[in-house]
């Protein structure tokens, strides 16, 4: 978080984390396509020819002034593919809140768990922990036929009982609810810390 008293600006950094192909970039693309042009900047995507994120996606959202203050949300996605581990660590630098985008498909459970542990490891090197850090889970790709039940997903992934959302990011289902929840979580967290 960065606060500039001269401009009355509050900058918050929110990172979409999750295994490869879970739909992180799709979340940002949807938000970008739906929000009024005056509220969002460009969406920058650093990707390979195959549309896989190679470093990160970035987009800034502003919602106008609140009590004279101007909150700005900097949204990032990380590359989910296993071998971009160090890029994920870099993007997490200075993070205020995380959206974990899980892939609901049965054969992706392993990938979800692995990436969640990777997240916990990276947070720990920065002195945070999933137990106290603001984060939410989005169970994405609920439209596909071979998905795990919500119950099992919850048992295996949501061990700290954080807010969770079912989503179909390509259609936008659950995307704004997820974003609103993490923004809320981050703001509440800042209040609780003081």
């Amino acid at each position, binding site marked *: *978080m*960065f*606060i*500039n*008293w*001269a*401009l009355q600006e*509050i*900058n918050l*950094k929110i990172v979409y984390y999750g295994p490869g192909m879970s739909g992180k970039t799709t979340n940002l693309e949807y938000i970008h396509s*739906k*929000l*009024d042009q005056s*509220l969002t*900047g*460009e969406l*920058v995507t650093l990707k390979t020819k195959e549309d896989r994120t190679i*470093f*990160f996606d*970035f987009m*800034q959202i502003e*919602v*106008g002034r*609140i*009590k004279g*203050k101007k*909150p700005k949300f*900097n949204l*990032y996605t990380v590359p989910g593919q296993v071998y971009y581990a*160090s*890029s994920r*660590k*870099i*993007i997490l*630098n*200075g*993070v*205020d809140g995380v959206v974990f985008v899980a892939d609901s498909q049965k054969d992706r459970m392993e990938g979800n768990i692995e990436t969640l542990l990777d997240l916990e490891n990276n947070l720990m090197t*920065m*002195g*945070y*922990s999933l137990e*106290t*850090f603001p984060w939410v889970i989005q169970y994405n790709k609920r439209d596909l036929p071979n998905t795990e039940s919500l119950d099992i997903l919850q048992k295996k992934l949501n061990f700290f009982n954080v807010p969770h959302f079912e989503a179909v990011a390509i259609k936008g289902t659950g995307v*704004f609810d997820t*974003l*609103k929840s993490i*923004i*809320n979580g981050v*703001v*509440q*967290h*800042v*209040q609780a*810390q*003081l």
Partner: protein
Amino acid sequence: MVQVKKLKDGSRQIILTAKQFDEITKVLSELAAKTKASTILMADISGQLITQRGNTDDINTAILSALAASDFAATAEMAKLIGEDAKFKLLFHEGEKRNVYLSNVGDNFFLVVVFDVSVTLGLVRIYTKKAIQNLLSVFDSTEKGDDAGKILDQDFSSMLGDMLDESFK
């Protein structure tokens, strides 16, 4: 001191007072004048833009800061991989029309200087180095700002919620 607060859970908060901001802006204006740099940014290492000088109308500087921070961080990782003890202190990208010079300012911030290829790098380096010293002394000044708690109160949360609902229709 620019407040870089570690909260209970280890998360980091950077707070800049109005006075510090003014002084930082002054240093950057001076640097822009001396180097004829077309654009100068100061950002924190997580990629959040702090202030900018020069021509910033046709450049999305929020994106430039995010990219520059990652560039910096990626290079630091590279340094580690090849066995460098310290981070690389500066980065230089040479273009056809413009060059970009990046340099860290203490542990938490960095500068991005975009300048015309006709300006010599040596000159930019000398003045940037001086500017960094000035910035570091601004950071060391003892004035304290208010807490984030004063801004992000209960009222703020609920108003923010309403505004998000409004925007996400």
